[in-house]
Each structure stands twice: as structure tokens, then as C-alpha cells.
């Protein structure tokens, strides 16, 4: 079986959905003949034409706004941000118009906004964003953040088919670094369902995106000391799989929440708060969060490495909890 990269999984999802459903189209900067800054849409304009693979001016508000207008008319637009950081430029449009459309006036607005996110590539303060938390308190968007090629493809298909707007967060560090065997047939990964990557009984790590590999590494290392770690890949941030989280905590009684965005106000706070309310009786130790520093992403490799969460920090936190 051939191996598919995370990047190709994303392209395949778009291509297959565009073949399946004439309502689906792609809109963004340089997505056409260039095939996207990361070549995510390479070859697509050749197959689908400039009508369905639309190069735009540098105008994120126009991209998200036009996608939203088209969605109201029954289309299924995929709006690409060249880097997910630039969704900040269309923040107003996305949270105020798109996300609220169904609740306010009953008009579903099913767009997918997708683009490369995340750090570890020395992209500096404006090309390293983990955007999920910015949107969590503005209801109406779904948010997914796959960490595997399988999930990237399956979740993107779900997102495109979803009747509501979805922010699809791609981790650019993974684009070409991971390769998997994917099913030949059409499949989807449902939004809102976590994946138990590793089953364990002493401690739960709840995470997503590229941090799942950090969690895996930490779990493998801890396994050497016979510590059994459960790793939950949330995959969907909103809605999130509360049941999976609570069940795991009920089983392990100790939990670390690990994410790449800065600590304060990160999505992890929400998961911690839910656990502290709904699984309080099961907790044998404090809830730990491991996350980036509360600063913008610095550019220089030693600074960025220190800024980002890593295996060692997770292991140290785990040992602390296990001693508790």
C-alpha cells in the first residue's frame, strides 16, 4: 500500500469531495495555478478549473465573507488561509457573520476555513499560531485539529459535509513529516469524537494536533517505568468528546492536558474546568496543563524550543502527579 502524507490526505479529501459534490469549491490566495503556498491544492485547478479553485486578492475578509455568502446559497466552500494566523484578519466576519448565522436568522452557513497552523518550524510570531482558543467563546463554529493523516482526511470530509461552519486546523509541522496507509474507500471521521491512541490506567494525557506525538513519546518513556499512560487525541475541540475525557479520568484518576498554544486562556482550560466540575470525585491529584509559554511564538530555535511544550515537561508533570 502506498503511504499518504498528512498534506496529501488533505488534498485527497478536497479532491474527492469536489468530485462527489459539485457544490464544493476552494477559495483562497494562490490556491490556483500555484497550488497553494504549501502545495496543498496542487493539481486541483487543472482538474476543476478556475471556477471551482478560485485565486483571490489578499483579502481574508473577502475570502471568508464570499465563502459565507456562497454557503448561504447552497454551496460548500472551502476557504484557505495561507497561514491560519491570517484568520485574525477575518475574525470579525467569521465569529460575527458566519458563526452566528444559523442561531440568529436560521440560515446555516456551512463553510470550512482551513489552513496551516502551529509552531516548531521557526516561523516566528505570525506563522506559528494555534488559533483554537480565540474562537471557543464565540459560539457557532466547530473546531477540529487532526494529528494524523487518517484523521486529516476523514475530518476534512466531515467538515465539508457538515451543515455548519468548521474551522479546520492543519498542523504544518506534520504536512510532510508523517505518512500513513489510508483506506482506499471513502471514509469519514466524525466531528466530536476523540480517539484513544493508547490505553492506560495510571494517568491520562488529553491532547491533539502535533502534540499527540509528544504525548506518545512521553507515554513510551513512562512505560519503561511501568507507568501506564492513556493518550487521548481529542481531534475535535468544539464540540469535544466530554464523555471520552470523563471516562478516562474516571479510570486513571490523574490527568494532564497538553497543548501547543500558550497556557493561559488556552483550550486546555476548558477541558480542565469540565473535569474539575464533572469528574471531581475521580481525581486523585491536581489537573496539570502543559502548554506553551504565555508569550508570542519567538523565532530563534532555542527560544522556540523553550517556548513549546515538550516530552520532558510532560514526563516531569506525570511523575509529579504519580507521586501525588
Amino acid at each position, binding site marked *: 500500500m502506498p503511504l499518504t502524507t498528512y498534506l496529501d490526505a488533505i488534498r485527497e479529501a478536497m479532491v474527492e469531495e469536489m468530485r462527489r459534490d459539485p457544490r464544493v*469549491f476552494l477559495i483562497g490566495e494562490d490556491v490556483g495555478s500555484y497550488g497553494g503556498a504549501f502545495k496543498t491544492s496542487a493539481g486541483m485547478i487543472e482538474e476543476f478549473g478556475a*471556477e*471551482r479553485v*478560485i485565486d*483571490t*486578492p489578499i*483579502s*481574508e*475578509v*473577502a*475570502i*471568508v*465573507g*464570499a*465563502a*459565507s*455568502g*456562497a*454557503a*448561504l*446559497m*447552497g*454551496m460548500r*466552500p472551502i476557504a484557505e488561509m495561507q497561514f491560519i494566523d491570517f484568520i485574525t484578519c477575518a475574525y*470579525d*466576519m467569521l465569529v*460575527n*457573520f458566519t458563526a*452566528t448565522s*444559523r*442561531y*440568529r*436568522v*436560521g*440560515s*446555516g452557513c456551512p463553510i470550512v476555513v482551513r489552513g496551516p497552523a502551529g509552531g516548531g518550524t521557526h516561523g516566528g510570531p505570525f506563522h506559528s499560531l494555534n488559533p483554537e482558543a480565540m474562537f471557543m467563546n464565540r*459560539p*457557532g463554529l*466547530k473546531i477540529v485539529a487532526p494529528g494524523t493523516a487518517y484523521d486529516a482526511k476523514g475530518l476534512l470530509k466531515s467538515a465539508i459535509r*457538515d*451543515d*455548519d461552519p468548521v474551522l479546520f486546523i492543519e498542523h504544518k509541522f506534520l504536512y510532510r513529516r508523517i505518512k500513513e496507509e489510508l483506506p482506499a474507500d471513502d471514509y469519514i471521521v466524525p466531528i466530536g469524537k476523540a480517539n484513544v491512541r493508547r490505553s492506560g490506567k495510571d494517568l491520562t494525557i488529553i491532547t491533539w494536533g502535533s502534540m499527540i506525538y509528544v504525548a506518545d513519546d512521553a507515554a513510551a518513556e513512562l512505560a519503561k517505568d511501568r507507568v501506564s499512560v492513556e493518550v487521548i487525541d481529542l481531534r475535535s475541540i468544539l464540540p469535544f468528546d466530554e464523555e471520552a475525557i470523563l471516562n478516562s479520568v474516571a479510570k486513571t484518576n490523574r490527568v494532564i492536558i497538553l497543548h501547543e498554544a500558550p497556557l493561559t486562556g488556552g483550550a486546555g482550560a476548558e477541558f480542565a474546568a469540565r473535569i474539575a466540575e464533572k469528574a471531581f470525585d475521580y481525581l486523585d491529584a491536581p489537573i496539570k496543563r502543559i502548554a506553551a509559554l504565555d508569550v508570542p511564538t519567538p523565532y530563534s530555535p532555542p527560544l522556540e524550543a523553550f517556548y513549546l511544550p515538550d516530552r520532558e515537561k510532560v514526563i516531569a508533570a506525570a511523575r509529579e502527579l504519580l507521586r501525588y
Partner: protein
Amino acid sequence: MTSPTPLETHGLTRENLLEIDYFLRLTRTLEERLVALFRQSKVIGGLYRSLGQEGESVAAAYALDYALGDVVQPLIRNMGSILVAGAKPSDIVKQYMAKADSPTRGRELNIHFGHPARDGFIGQISMLGDMIPVMAGIALAGRMQKRHLVGMAFIGDGASSTGAFYEGMNFATVQRLPLVVILENNGYAYSTPTSKQSAVRSLADKAHAFGCASETVDGNDVLATYAAARRAVERARAGGGVTLIEAKTFRMKGHAEHDNQSYVPQSLIEEWSAKDPVVRFEKTLVDAGIATAADFEMIQSRAKREVDAATDEAERSPMPNPEEAARGLFAGDGFWEEQR
């Protein structure tokens, strides 16, 4: 009795002209009713009048063909345009009264309602400028779907200072989308005169930044506004792309009911009172021998009757059940499918 002044009606029949007058009167009557309801504290939230601007709202929207799927996007002062597109007065009153069976079931204010593909008009959001990119997307979808629909967006002098307006206009123009944008220059944005909003001599000049067609029209001249809008709609439908029409008019009331517009020179108010678009339009029809005072009386009493009925219906409507607030955010909970 003088002989009638010949009138260029731009292809509008007598029936059309009287229908336009009906929409003008309906708009004014309905707004006056809303003022009364506002004073009785039955309108929840603010009330934003279009007095003196009904002409351009109605005339421009009348240039669309809703049977073809055309979509009009009003801002707060364009109630007239959605009445033309087919909005029911009772729905508008219910919206203002935040009733359970209003189109948005009490979630949204005033004329923030309407689905473009179903209603021929679309509910705006408050963030000024944002509807231009959205309308570009509607026009884009229409083209992709091989429908020959045209979109029409209203925007204020103030709102035309927003980045969203600019990005939407630029995108629509470079994509040659079927979009007509009516830039209502009514002298003020809240308390800010147009001279503090922009240094351009004519707001129609903004078109040069996009390379789209443009013209300036007397927004208080109903027939001239209709003609300009019609030209633009035809251009759009023929594939000629975007037109920006500056409609010069005047906001005869404050920004909203709470604002006595003391910042507006009295002379300006007097000057524009004399140019009332409805009175002027009716006079033109009379002078041309197309209509008589009796026609207008009938129209006015029809408008009043309909507004009375709408008010009665709205007043009888219940307020929403509190628990509903939790529903209808996402598809699948059945909320929006329930009949009202």
C-alpha cells in the same frame, strides 16, 4: 388645468409607478407606526428611521427581478427595499417587538432577517461593511449555479470607510460579479458628517479604486434612482460586473430615535425637507397626468390598512419561550424546522 408634463418613466408602466408609490407609502406608514410602538415601549431596542430616504431604498430595489433569484441586502435604513422584495409588514413589526413567531424567533433585531435564496433579501449583521463580501459570495454562487441573479447591496457613507467594504468591492470587481452597490450618502454617519468620513469630493469616486462602473444619482429622485439602478442591474446581468451608485440623500431624523440630531444645521434640514422624495414622486406623477390625488389616497389607505393588520397580528403574537434560547445553534436539533 395645465397640460401634463411628459415623463420619462424608464419603461415603468402606470401600474409599476403606482406600485412604487405604494411601497414608498408603506415604508413611511410602517415606520411611523413603529415610532408609535416605540413610544409605547413595545419596540425592543432602537429604532432607526429612513425618513427622507425611502425614495432610493424603494426605487433601487424595484430594479431587481426577484423571480430570477435576485437578492437585495439592506442596511438598517433600507426597510423599503425589503418590502419591495416581498418582506411582510407583520414580520417586520414582530421583529421589532421581538416576538416568538418573528422570522428570527426573537433572536435578532429589526430588519436583520431573511434568507437570500428563499426570501430575495438577506439579514445584515451590525458590523458595517461586512455584508459587501457576503453579497459578493452570493453573486459568485449565483454564477456558479448558472442562475442569472443579481445582488444589490446598500451601504452608508460611513460604512464605506470600512475595510470590509473595500475588500468586498475589490474582490467582486476583479471577479466581475453581478453586484450593484448603492452607496447612500445621507450626509451623516451617526454624528459624523461625510466630510470627516472621507476627503473625496464624490463618494462615487471610490469606484476608481476597484475599476468598477459608477455614477452619482439624486437619491431623492425616485425615477432617476430607479433608472440608474436598472442600468446597473442590466449591466450586472449581462456580465458587465459591479456598479457603485452614489445616491445623494439626507437623513431627516437622528441616527436613532434617541438622537435629536442637534449637530445637524437647521438649514440643511429645511433644505432637504423641501426635497422629500415621496411628495416629489407623487407630484411628478400628478404633473405627468399619470395619477391623481385619489389614487394616492387609495394607496395610503391600503398602506394604513396593511400596517394596522400587521400591528394587530404582531401585538397578538406571543413572546418566545425562554428555554428556546438554548436551541438552534447548529443543525440537527430541529429548532428551525419546527413550524410557527
